[in-house]
């Protein structure tokens, strides 16, 4: 019997590994949603000068999302009489599956990937586009005007924003010469080799991509599909309970997925910024397998921290900027983002073909130094501003001495 089992294992270990990988991915997606919702509430609270969750699970409200999840699980799951029953039920799951499939091709570390694909990037873009279909079905199947408006807006938005998003992602692909996400990440060892610093075009492509990615996750300022001030709650007006939860798991999953693409294509993937692959470094000191495990634990944590940093930036933008109008959203894409991304793609092709190598190297160094200096300056100003006593001219404050009601610098001195 034991002999048979070991023989069985020798032939079929891949299936066991595949099942474990699938479980891990689903687990990660759920934990990611729980953590991101908590983070979103804390960030929103901080930006709007309130506390956010503080009670459930200690001082920082760590368990608030779990409590919410419990509430949503036991909440009544209503289906409106006017709704198309089948589409109403099936929509959230299409959205969730579209978002989940993207994680299959996403590498978290050196060899930590569910399925290695030559066209991993393209696969991720393709499956994430099917998430929109779920949203449209949700909007249409609800049988409500608000939902239908939300769904149609989402369709219009996604059909347009997919184009600049894909074109911007192609800019580092042209530099890297590969769509294999692990390979692209491995080419960027050392922070100065990150593709965002490679040339002016990739630098601009990162910001353009990130804008489109925010729009594709229907995050504010592009959350026209939701637009709670005009459309009640947009496409998910009629949803409650677990189905509503599923919609939001899909949204937070795809937020991490697009951030993961940005990480790998522009920000070095799981590289912490050192010019060596951590697994090979640790393999020299600890032996092959322990080194691989230790190195990859570090890699995966670096990748997740980077991903959540980008997710944090999305939240920061959401709670800072006001929502655009639908015509402004469409104009931004069709008049600006698409031409910009076309120019970026043509530019980076010409750059890699005709620019002398020395000039490429110097300019990428200049971009790197300027970005680091700029980031340092911003962080320094933020810290000094935060240290000021209250009432002494925070950024954006209206400094007008003569204005009635002004309690600025003059009073405290």
């Amino acid at each position: 019997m034991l002999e048979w089992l070991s023989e069985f294992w020798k032939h079929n270990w891949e299936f066991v590994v595949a099942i474990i990988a699938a479980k891990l991915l689903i687990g990660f997606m759920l934990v990611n949603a729980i953590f991101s919702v908590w983070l979103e509430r804390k960030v929103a609270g901080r930006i709007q000068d309130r506390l956010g969750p503080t009670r459930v699970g200690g001082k920082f409200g760590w368990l608030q999302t779990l409590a919410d999840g419990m509430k949503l699980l036991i909440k009544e799951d209503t289906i409106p009489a006017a709704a198309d029953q089948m589409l109403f039920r099936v929509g959230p799951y299409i959205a969730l599956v579209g978002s989940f499939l993207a994680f299959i091709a996403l590498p978290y570390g050196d060899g930590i990937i569910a399925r290695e694909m030559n066209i991993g990037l393209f696969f991720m873009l393709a499956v994430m586009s099917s998430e929109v279909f779920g949203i449209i079905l949700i909007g249409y199947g609800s049988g409500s005007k608000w939902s239908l408006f939300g769904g149609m807006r989402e369709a219009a938005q996604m059909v347009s924003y997919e184009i600049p998003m894909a074109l911007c992602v192609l800019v580092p692909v042209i530099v890297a010469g590969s769509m294999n996400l692990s390979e692209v990440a491995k080419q960027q060892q050392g922070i100065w080799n990150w593709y965002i610093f490679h040339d002016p075009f990739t630098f601009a492509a990162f910001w353009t991509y990130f804008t489109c990615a925010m729009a594709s996750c229907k995050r504010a300022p592009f959350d026209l599909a939701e637009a709670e001030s005009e459309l009640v709650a947009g496409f998910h007006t009629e949803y409650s309970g677990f189905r509503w939860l599923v919609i939001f798991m899909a949204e937070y999953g795809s937020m991490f997925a697009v951030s993961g693409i940005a990480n790998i294509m522009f920000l070095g993937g799981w590289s912490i910024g050192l010019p060596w692959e951590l697994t090979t470094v640790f393999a020299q000191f600890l032996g092959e397998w322990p080194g691989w495990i230790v190195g990859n634990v570090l890699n995966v944590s670096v990748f997740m921290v980077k991903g959540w940093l980008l997710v944090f930036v999305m939240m920061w933008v959401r709670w800072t900027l006001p929502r655009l109008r639908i015509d402004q959203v469409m104009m931004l894409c069709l008049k600006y983002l698409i031409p910009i991304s076309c120019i970026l793609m043509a530019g980076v092709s010409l750059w890699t073909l005709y620019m002398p190598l020395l000039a490429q190297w110097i300019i990428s160094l200049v971009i790197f130094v300027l970005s680091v200096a700029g980031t340092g300056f911003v962080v320094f100003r933020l810290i000094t501003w935060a240290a000021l006593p209250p009432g002494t001219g925070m950024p954006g404050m209206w400094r007008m001495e003569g204005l009635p009601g002004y309690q600025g610098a003059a009073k405290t001195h």
Partner: protein
Amino acid sequence: MLQTDLHSYVQLFAFGLVAGLTGLCAIATVVTQNIVRSATWLLFTLAGTSGIFFLLGADFVGAIQLLIYVGGTMVLVVFGVMLTAQGPFIHMKTNGAEWAISIAAGILLFSVLSVGLGSEYLARATGARGVSKDEDTKDSHHAATIGQALSGAPYGPERKNDNNAGTHYLLPFEIVSVHLLVVLIGAAYLARAKRRKEEIT
């Protein structure tokens, strides 16, 4: 003794599952009378086809299938709903004659496909037509030949000395494209004609 290697079973099971679901969804596409539900079933069918491509290891074709057809179905739903909707949920009635015609067309297509595939299989099995018996289907260049013929290039690598060296499918391909154009114009005309009638009345 039990079989210890599950690979062939799992592959067969996965293929059967995906293919069966795809077939069921295809039937549901035809049977459903609600236009948006039908489009949803169509989406599932196309996604199932891409699943078969992924099972075969053709990642690129599978991803293309997903990207193009999901986008296409989405546009179909949006325009299908926006241009033709009169009630909130449209129901299409299919009468007996339509059923008969479509079933006949389906049987005809199935028989053409099975005869084509069957004759190829027979030729392979008996070694007729110069196709060697143990030639692996995976290594054959038939798909490439058809692709080249579609693009107007008249020959594939192994058909150079064939009598059919001159055949290419550019003309039928173009005719199909023109047919698609006709369908597009027709759809636009139908949608506009309805609106005009509303304006008059």
